[in-house]
């Protein structure tokens, strides 16, 4: 057991956990930030995607002791009022079916758009291929991503 200090969604948090605990389970079990989802635990599904210093990372693959000063953002902290452009695009395209994968999809997409405001299909595929949607909402996800910075 170790005491670990983290910055999550702009707030300093201190947790007592095993130092090798994946960030995913610290978020879900200790901080009750359950928007970040468990899907595979091996970095193969993207359900657990969060931003670490702005970059999309699989939280199931990050030991909490490695985070240090880096800033963690979860779906709950992506925007204050749930109105991040990507969230709005998701609602406009009525993307979700079951919804379970969508927090991870949104975190991957918002990180992509941060660095590549007008991604091509190939760039979208590359950034989003790690996020499985079992319900098969891929075409809507792609359309939503393209709409975010579309002109006109």
């Amino acid at each position, binding site marked *: 057991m170790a005491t670990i200090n983290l910055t999550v969604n702009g707030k300093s948090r201190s947790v007592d956990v095993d130092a090798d605990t994946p960030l995913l*389970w610290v978020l879900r079990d200790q901080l009750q930030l359950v928007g970040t989802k468990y*899907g595979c*635990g091996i970095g193969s599904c993207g359900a657990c995607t969060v931003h670490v210093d702005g970059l999309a990372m699989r939280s199931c693959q990050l030991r909490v002791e490695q985070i240090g000063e880096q800033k963690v953002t979860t779906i709950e902290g992506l925007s204050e009022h749930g109105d991040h452009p990507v969230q709005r695009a998701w609602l406009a395209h*009525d993307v979700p*079916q079951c*919804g379970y994968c969508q927090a991870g999809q949104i975190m991957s997409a918002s990180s992509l758009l941060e660095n590549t405001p007008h991604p091509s299909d190939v760039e979208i595929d590359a950034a989003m291929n790690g996020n499985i949607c079992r319900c*098969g909402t891929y075409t809507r996800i792609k359309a939503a991503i393209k709409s975010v910075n579309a002109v006109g």
Partner: protein
Amino acid sequence: MSTSANSQNRRNFLKTTALGGGGLLLGFNWLTGCTGKASQPGSVDLGPELPESWHDINAYLKIGNNGTVTIYTPNPEFGQGVMTAMPMILAEELDVDWKDVISEQAPFNAEKFGFQFTGGSRGIMSRWAGLRQAGATARQMLIAAAAQEWEVPAEEITTKAGRLYHAGSDRAMGYGDVATVAAELPMPEEAPLKDLKDFSIIGKSKKNVQGREIVTGKPLFGIDYHKEGMLTAMIVHPPSFGQRLERIRNLDEVKAMPGIKDVFAIKTYKDGQEKGGFDTNAFPELVAVVGDATWRVMKAKKALLVDWQEQEAFEESINGFRGKTSRKVPAGLENSAEHSKRMEEMAAQPAREVRKDGNPELAFRTADRVLERSYSAPFLAHNCMEPMNAFAHVEGDQVWIAGPLQAPGLIEPTIAARMDLPVENIDIEMTRMGGGFGRRAYSHYMLEAALISKEVAAPVKLIYSREDDMTNGIYRPTYQATYRAAIDANGELTALHVKAGGIPESPLFANRFPAGSIDNYLAEEWSIDSNITIGAFRAPRSNFMAGAEQAFLDELAEELGKDPIDFRLELLQKAKDKPVGERNDYDPERYAGVLKLVRDKSGWGQGDEGISRGVSAYFCHNSYAAHVLDLTVENGKPVVQKVTCAIDCGVVVNPDAAANMAEGGIVDGVGNAFFGEMTFTDGKPDKQNFDSYRMIRMSEAPKVIDVHFVASEVDPTGLGEPPFPPVFGAVANAIYRATGERRYKQPFMGKPLKG
């Protein structure tokens, strides 16, 4: 307006009993029940204002003094959109403004809501009449209350968008103003229903009522459930089918690990306990590990050393939908290679005849030529994104359960029997499900959680790891089908023979198309017992038969020198004009309708040279679907450029959400046709997680999906399943057009494509 009779005691019926769907399937109840979280349709930013007081009008709705209406969705939500579509149906007849509606998952209460079940694409179909009636009778009560208030005849009162009007005296008020009075009134004798042409909500796309909660990461799912003092539990099941627990070798050592509260064996069924039809479970003996944090429990689970022994053969008795049956479960550790061999052997022998028309033997004997092709498909895992999980708290003789499940009414009696408690003592709360696809109709994990909670005397949340989930069974069975067609010297089709089987069940539907369109027809089936458990998987059996049949018809059309759509339409015309046999369970006209629509919308045959396209159509779950799939090959890999889809499922309640579900079914079909496969070595599933189990991903999804619905005034029928099965045929047929090579064995991408 159409009216439907409604007697005085209908009020009682409405208030206390199941409306619609109640007796629909076999008189079970079903449960849904979120935590009463209100969702907000209408505006994205602000939901309806909450009232100071609520007034129950009937089991399905309450009206606030400010006119806000809460509508309860009786069936559980797993992404099919019932929490939006079902309230839309009621709101339409209630004549209320959609922006004033709050959608809530109803609690599990069979007396009030009947069979609360998600499966078989029956949700909207089974609730259509009941929800309309619930809305219409409520509207009548509001009118009656206004008539009292204004002292005018009820007939002179009209409604619009949640308001009541009396033109004669130029008065108006909101539903909320009379909700108190209305709630006390008797049920009206007649509840007029709207004409379809007057619909203003049904048929107009509404956004997912939980969309905002989903995109902001609110705790909606079972796995998100939290209760103070709750422990986390995981299970360890045998690594192989055909095995059971022998002993835990290092119990004390694991119990001493940090944060671990207890480690023990549980047994999900009593010896000889009669099972319900959805109590399928390969691994009733488990090791439970309970601790204070998920990660610690995972570490303890890894450290655990367990000896397993071979399970002897046994027979179990099942009391399911089809009455009492028994199931033989063989001993042994099974292998996929052996499965294939045994399936080929069975396919080569005569099988059980299910249907015969005319004289197929003679037709084959005298045929000029015979086209024979065999198709096969592997076991599939459901792989819902949210792994199986359940919260349970057992206190004395009370059991509280919450979690994702498709059929609480099916597991409740099993829990009661196992725990020696009356069903009244068991309370199940339904959470939103992170996918279901049939898997969550088998909710043994609820019972496991309850047994664990009882043992540790604390609330627990049981979570399956992805590996536990994927290797637990309840798979889509592996199937095989052989089709033969007899062709005479004039090049006419004279007979068709289908023989299909699987492990452990046959996929055959003997009375479906093309039965009824061919004079000489024979359908046979066989099956092989197995200890690998199977269960419903999106469009059970159809999800294989459609692909085999539609690929065969494609090849047959080619053999006969006909266009594949024209050929199917010819057969359907025959089935309509001169049907063979009497048990044909499809409507040839509606079937032809989707083929014509997809031909039209895809521009089939109009300058599509250079595009490799496959067509396929199927009827299941009371609806018709047809696809044209356009495919190119790049570096041996298929690229689905476009899928055009036509569906006839009657009236479409929420068109954009319906299109979303059809798109999902198509992506699911393409993914499983290309990649889906579970295999076994010595009883052990060869794939345990998404690194080895190939799921379709963004770059492999169709680039464009274009969904069209046949305009219809027929009452709605299924939609979650029907678009899925025909995809497999469309993929197979498009691959052939693109490469010149037919693929008969799924998954089709077992080896790279030519080209």
